[in-house]
């Protein structure tokens, strides 16, 4: 694998993670709990898109858009049914509840669609192959959607009332609450945006690989890691975290740690030393633990909270 190829893979991964970590971070910012059902919501969107795309024969782009909107509304409904009853409960109580909700969602999907891997019906597209890298049109789409998501988030944060309210709430939660900002209306919109974005992210992952009921759980740690890495509650941090993690996951397997240990021949460490591919899922876990050890507030985290 060439160096350029690793960079492209990293950017694709970062784009997917961004879509998911942005939603996780804004829900945390407004509702002050870590939503362990976040990635499971995304999988609901993935399977709705599968239903529209394969069962009803809709092309993938309208199917993805409709599925993400429906999932966004579904999250509002579940918020009303579950989380609204616990607005005054402590973060840990709501977090455990979201874990239960996540288990219920994941297994409902497995009961309806079965445990086998599935695929969207999309026409095969020839990858663009050059001397240094190969990239599929889908991967270009993933990067474009990821960049568009970041840009629209930035615009939303700085040019809409909702964004203003969200920034106020993260700057000073008490003052924002006293000014009546964290109202139910804001919460509803935050859920919709967070889960619709997550659903798009999930669908892109499903397009690039395959669809499994378990995929939400497979990405929960990378998504949380990206979010915490950048500073939980901070949308820009979530973007940065996703980028760092995307690169770490891919470069972790590419770098010859033997050469680093060798320090240009000083130590005489001549063996090649790569992280075995079987440990790829462990990379994000280990980064997460390192981040918690060294800088628990994240790269862009504020000092105030601990």
């Amino acid at each position: 694998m060439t160096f350029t190829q690793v960079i492209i893979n990293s950017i694709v991964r970062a784009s997917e993670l961004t879509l998911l970590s942005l939603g996780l971070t804004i829900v945390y910012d407004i509702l002050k709990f870590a939503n362990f059902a976040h990635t499971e919501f995304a999988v609901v969107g993935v399977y709705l898109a599968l239903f529209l795309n394969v069962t009803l024969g809709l092309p993938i782009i309208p199917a993805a858009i409709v599925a993400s909107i429906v999932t966004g509304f579904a999250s509002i409904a579940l918020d009303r049914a579950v989380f609204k009853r616990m607005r005054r409960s402590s973060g840990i109580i709501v977090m455990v509840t979201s874990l239960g909700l996540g288990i219920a969602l994941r297994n409902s999907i497995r009961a309806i669609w079965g445990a086998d891997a599935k695929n969207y019906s999309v026409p095969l597209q020839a990858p663009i192959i050059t001397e240094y890298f190969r990239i599929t049109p889908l991967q270009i789409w993933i990067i474009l959607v990821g960049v568009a998501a970041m840009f629209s988030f930035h615009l939303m944060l700085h040019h809409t009332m909702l964004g203003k309210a969200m920034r106020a709430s993260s700057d000073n939660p008490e003052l924002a609450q006293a000014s009546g900002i964290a109202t139910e209306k804001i919460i509803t919109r935050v859920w919709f945006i967070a889960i619709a974005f997550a659903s798009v992210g999930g669908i892109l992952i499903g397009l690039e690989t395959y669809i499994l009921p378990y995929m939400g759980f497979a990405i929960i740690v990378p998504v949380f890691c990206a979010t915490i890495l950048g500073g939980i509650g901070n949308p820009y941090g979530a973007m940065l975290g996703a980028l760092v993690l995307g690169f770490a996951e891919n470069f972790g397997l590419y770098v010859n740690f033997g050469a680093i240990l060798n320090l240009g021949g000083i130590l005489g460490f001549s063996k090649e030393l790569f992280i075995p591919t079987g440990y790829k899922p462990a990379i994000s876990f280990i980064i997460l633990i390192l981040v918690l050890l060294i800088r628990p507030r994240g790269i862009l985290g504020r000092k105030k909270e601990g």
Partner: protein
Amino acid sequence: MGLVNFLVYLAIMMGIYGILSLSLNLQYGFTGLANFGHVAFFCLGAYTSTRLVLVFKMPFIIGLLGAMVIAGLFGYVISIPTANLKEDYWAIATLAAAEVVRIFFLNEDWVVGGGPYQGGSFGIGGIPQPLRSLFSAYTYPFFYLAVVLVCLLATYVIINALTQSPFGRVIKSIRSGDNLPQALGKDVRAFRMKVMAIGGTFGGLAGCLWAHYHGFISPNQFLPLETFIVWAMVIVGGKANNKGAIVGAVVIMVFYNSTRFLKDYIPIEEVTLASLRMVVIGVLIVIAMIFMKEGLIKEKKTVY
């Protein structure tokens, strides 16, 4: 499977999960530590004991003690990066740690001796059952049940004594925020680490009992799912109440195992049934958290 055999099996599972539930209850119920990676201790205990007994040919009791020591040490080590952090970080860090443990055993087949089709994703079989030769195939489960119940009783007595001691009062004060114990000059970080180590020790005990009962372990048995089942036990049974933790284990295990027979009566596929079972577990957690915060058996409030 005869009814008696099934009931003995069920009772053994209740005992093993009862130990897990008691140890998670110490961490979550009493101390407020959201440990979403409890299965890591279970897994480590199972593999440590298998390594000691199967590969190093040590007696069962050494395997059992080794399992407890390694799992306890692991609990202590993973709480180093998290001991000063808020509960959200605990949850994800422990979840991640448990997955690292599972991925480790998935990749390193030498841990259980290696050999073709052994270790790694193949799992490892032929784990010796303690004192197996003294009993017939029919009477052995009864003996093992006795072993499990003795361990459960010991766990209950020790954790109960701990939670009623001054140590227990400190960890309960940690649950409602760091300010009070800190004002009293307690080292909150050290207490959290001790709780993780003690909880881990008993989690390891459960893992050892599991491995030697089934005689076969593989990384697939230690999915995060197991952690969530134990969480359901603690929440449904009643957090911060040791009797509640055991009641929770009994209730959830009866539900979990009795629904297996449903497929004999209604036409439903095994996979669908397994999924629906977990849907119920998830919904139970949600409902208990909203409507029944105290669980089946309420925490005893003591006024000093």
